[in-house]
């Protein structure tokens, strides 16, 4: 192979890399605009259960219940779904520490709520969405997280509450 100088100097920038970088930058801007207008529907990785099935599993497993009170029209709820519930690591933490139950408010869309949703909203005095309620298996005071505090903070709060509940029921096995 001829020396680098003969091939266009030692400081030549690889053209292929420039072209790829430029094309990807354009793709990034285009997809950014597109997804800002139409946020993608990411698959949820949290294994949500119905309130009845969740309650039964919580009683048999001794895991705390995690109620997610949300609504279709709620922007922060969608952001939380995208950032936390569609993130593999966060979702696995939630699946391991809790029995997750989602309760979607349909008051605005249909004028009424599912009786289970209505009853649980009243029990935990839900006034805003999203609200997460962690109910320990021993019936002690539930932890309420109102609003979406950002991914890192939320995962931190959930992990702390989950580990605390696990320690209360007899330590980590």
């Amino acid at each position: 192979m001829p020396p680098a100088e003969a091939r266009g100097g030692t400081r030549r920038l690889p053209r292929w890399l420039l072209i790829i970088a430029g094309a990807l930058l354009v793709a990034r801007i285009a997809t950014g605009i597109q997804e800002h207008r139409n946020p993608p529907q990411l698959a949820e990785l949290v294994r949500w259960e119905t309130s009845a099935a969740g309650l039964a599993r919580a009683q048999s497993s001794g895991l705390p219940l995690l109620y997610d009170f949300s609504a279709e029209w709620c922007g922060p709820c969608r952001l939380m779904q995208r950032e936390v519930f569609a993130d593999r690591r966060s979702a696995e933490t939630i699946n391991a520490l809790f029995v997750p139950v989602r309760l979607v408010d349909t008051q605005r869309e249909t004028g009424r709520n599912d009786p289970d949703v209505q009853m649980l909203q009243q029990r935990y005095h839900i006034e805003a969405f999203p609200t997460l309620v962690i109910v320990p298996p021993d019936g002690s005071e539930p932890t309420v997280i109102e609003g979406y505090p950002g991914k890192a903070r939320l995962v931190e709060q959930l992990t702390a509450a989950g580990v605390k509940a696990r320690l209360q029921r007899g330590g980590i096995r």
Partner: protein
Amino acid sequence: MNATLVLAFWRQRLASPIRLVILSLMVLLPPALVSAIRGLSITSLGDAIPLAMVLAVGMIGQDVSSGVLQLILARPVRRSEYVLSRWLAVALGASAVSLLQIGIFWGLSAARGAAPGFDTVAQFALGRELQIFGVAATMAFLSTLIGGVGDLALYALIMILGGIVGMIGQVRHSSVLTWIGQEMGAFVSPKIEVAQLVAGTPSWFTLATYASNLTLALVLAILILNRKELSYASG
């Protein structure tokens, strides 16, 4: 890409006892702990960024500070070839270490009768590989900006600033500040959610951001190195 440069870099990194000790601890301790605690999954092994950092820190800056770069570039080696070889050497080396760590975790879990399924392991391993190649490019860029292991300080600075700006953005409901924080975070902690790819619901913006950051970091690293005037009297 230059195989000789890649091999020379690995030899240089493996000649450092501190790096070897840190790498050995990182490879052995997390799998032993995570597989011993019931209920913890493979994702508890965490990100691959710390593993990549052990090999990546000072990948170019140390050569500049020690005068080795002048010697390398005295030979007919293109500067772009040097940067790309350094990037590949870090990425391949860290990939091997990451796969070794995952293999040890799998072996220990299997011995306890709780080995994770192939899909789970493959998705986790792929996610880590992508992260390693991304962060190696980021470090290649930062390492051209500052000598020695100053790239680690720059990395930490961007990470902290990104976190602060993002937090202010959320508190003040400023989409611009939140976006700046997210972009800084994506630059220092590149990540692709493989589970979303498998589920057929990828965010194309996230994919494009990852690939764009990686290539831009490499282009910038080459441009900066091209502008450096290296002489024995410069250092």
